[in-house]
């Protein structure tokens, strides 16, 4: 059985997780464009698109807001597919019987649907093709050990999250609730972080440096990084609330607000703001609450900038600019600075759709990078048995050519050996396996 907290170092799985993360970033962009263009309701039905099965919606009809909304739905389907494959891959050979059975069930359901509703043949075709793909791929699925249980559960959580996310998106359309859009936007950010974490956990880099004392010489850094990352999450929720009120820019100027440090928010002033605003697209009237929300967004942005600068300062002072944490902190700071600039340009451009969407993506990357830094900082608290030094020692689980290797994930054995290349449990010398001296350089000063 897999040991707890070990991870797979399968490079293909890791690359696939990275691909899923990149696709999710693309999906975030597509979703951001939908909201930025106010096109969330451009396709009035769901899960169909203008009565068509969404995969059969004619391209000639992808005009105006429909283009953004329909592309978002298709992109979401792609990410759903990738996430499903990723979750199944983490289960390794255990996924085979499920895939086979589920494939048969879907094929039967497609046949039943075709008989019962012949006019909805396109739906039956999609279900049938999915079933056939599951069934046939189950025979070619890697015969490899499942990933550790916690990683499998994380994959399952990603799968459930993407399903929930799809449902939230659909319910937003059919229930006409802006509030669902806020949850949809927030879950999108959290899902992106989860997939990024999966990409990290399945990477060889993570496996090789397990237990490394990244933050051992900066005991306050994990707390600061975590607090900053949570603050970024709060900021993203504030941003989602602002965007999903569909009121455009509640404050049209920056760095001042209606020409003042703190704008008047009484009813007469708000009425005047609305009177002066000539919107070219359909926007809801602004309210004092929305003005307060944007002021809060600005204040939290300043706090985040200061906090990330503090994290960078701590990391550089303790570990130097060449350490992994130092580099990561510098990238994080650069990203937050860029994000602040994008926020300002969003206002100066009167919320141009592409700029506003880039601002959303910047927020997602800031959150993901913060989470990555958190994980690095807290990795030292993982069990000592998982340190690289100990993992490099021959394990009791390794007992010869036919031994079971718990941490190999889905790597298919070669030449009669079950050891993966560069596996931390592989007794053969590996040029890529980090040596203690290399680790010292990588992780900062000892």
């Amino acid at each position, binding site marked *: 059985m897999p040991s707890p907290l070990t991870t797979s170092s399968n490079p293909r799985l890791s690359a696939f997780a990275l691909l899923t993360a990149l696709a999710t970033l693309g999906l975030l962009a597509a979703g951001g464009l939908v909201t930025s263009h*106010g*096109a969330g309701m451009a*396709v009035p039905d769901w899960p169909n698109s203008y009565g068509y099965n969404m995969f059969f919606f004619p391209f000639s009809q992808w*005009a*105006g807001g429909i283009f953004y*909304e329909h592309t978002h739905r298709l992109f979401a389907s792609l990410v759903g597919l990738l996430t499903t494959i990723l979750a199944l891959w983490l289960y390794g050979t255990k996924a085979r019987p499920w895939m086979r059975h589920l494939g048969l069930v879907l094929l039967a359901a497609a046949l039943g649907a075709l008989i019962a509703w012949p006019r909805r043949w396109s739906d039956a075709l999609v279900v049938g093709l999915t079933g056939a793909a599951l069934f046939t791929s189950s025979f070619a699925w890697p015969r490899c050990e499942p990933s550790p249980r916690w990683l499998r559960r994380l994959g399952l959580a990603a799968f459930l999250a993407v399903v929930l996310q799809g449902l939230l998106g659909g319910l937003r359309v059919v229930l006409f609730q802006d509030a669902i859009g806020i949850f949809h936007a927030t879950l999108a950010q959290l899902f992106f972080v989860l997939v990024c974490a999966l990409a990290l956990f399945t990477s060889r880099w993570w496996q090789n440096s397990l237990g490394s004392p990244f933050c051992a010489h900066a005991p306050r850094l994990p707390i600061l990084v975590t607090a900053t990352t949570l603050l970024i999450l709060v900021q993203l929720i504030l941003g989602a609330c602002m965007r999903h009120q569909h009121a455009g820019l509640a404050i049209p100027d920056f760095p001042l607000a209606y020409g003042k440090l703190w704008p008047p928010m009484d009813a007469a002033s708000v009425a005047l703001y609305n009177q*002066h605003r000539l919107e070219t697209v359909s926007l809801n009237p602004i309210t004092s609450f929305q003005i307060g929300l944007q002021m809060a967004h600005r204040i939290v942005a300043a706090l985040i900038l200061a906090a990330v600068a503090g994290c960078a300062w701590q990391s550089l002072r303790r570990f130097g600019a060449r350490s992994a944490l130092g580099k990561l902190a510098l990238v994080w700071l650069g990203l937050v600075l860029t994000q602040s600039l994008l926020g300002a340009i969003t206002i100066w451009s009167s919320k141009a759709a592409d700029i506003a969407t880039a601002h959303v993506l910047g927020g997602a990357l800031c959150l993901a990078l913060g989470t990555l830094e958190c994980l690095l900082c807290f990795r030292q608290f993982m069990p000592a048995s998982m340190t690289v030094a100990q993992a490099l020692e021959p394990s009791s689980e390794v007992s010869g050519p036919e031994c079971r290797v718990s941490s190999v994930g889905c790597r298919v054995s070669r030449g009669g050996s079950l050891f993966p290349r560069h596996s931390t449990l592989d007794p053969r010398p590996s040029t890529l396996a980090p040596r203690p001296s290399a680790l010292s350089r990588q992780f900062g000063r000892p």
Partner: protein
Amino acid sequence: MNKTTILLAAAGVALALQWAPAGDITGTITLKGAPPKEKVITPYKDDVNCRNLTPETPTTRFYVVSPNGELADVVVSVQGISGKSTGASAKPATLDQKNCLYVPQILAVQTGQKLIVKNSDPVLHNVDVQPANESGNPPRNEAQVPGASDLTFSFPKPEMFLKIKCDVHAWMFAWVSVFDHPYFAVSAKDGTFKIPNVPPGKYTLQAAHRKAGTVTREVEVKEDQPAKVDFTLEAK
């Protein structure tokens, strides 16, 4: 006095009240001050389906002002009257989608009155009715392909400036004000309005413009005498 006599007398009184000589309220809306310059709808010219429908790129239509300063698209209504809707039997109002714009952009109906939405464009639109959350009017979102039959809407609750928008073309939006009585009007291009057949009495008259705000005036309607009320709204 038997029951029949009482019933006949009651019916007579009701009939007399129904036929009570009513008056019209007329007036003109004027805008004081220079309105902000309307904006060119730039996304319009980027849309491959809509940009060829008109030779010029349209502008926003918030302040429709005549050269003499008369203001159109002001919703004028009698306040303090409720529960007198004749919407079920009223002539349906019409909202058209023409050249990828809503025509008219501002209109008013009674509760229960039919609102017919047409699509005169060779372009797919969706009609997204977005009432305020607390209004009690249900949201609705319908697709309308070119040549499709008209859509019919009606609203059960009064609401000022209920928004109707097309999400396919983000610049397309209109506002419908819903009243539970028939005593309202929308000012014409020359700023004039007429509310017919208002029962005699003292009323508060409200003029509401989407951007210029709201003003009220007191008015007394006498039997068979038109009452004239002019409003001046201010572009601040």
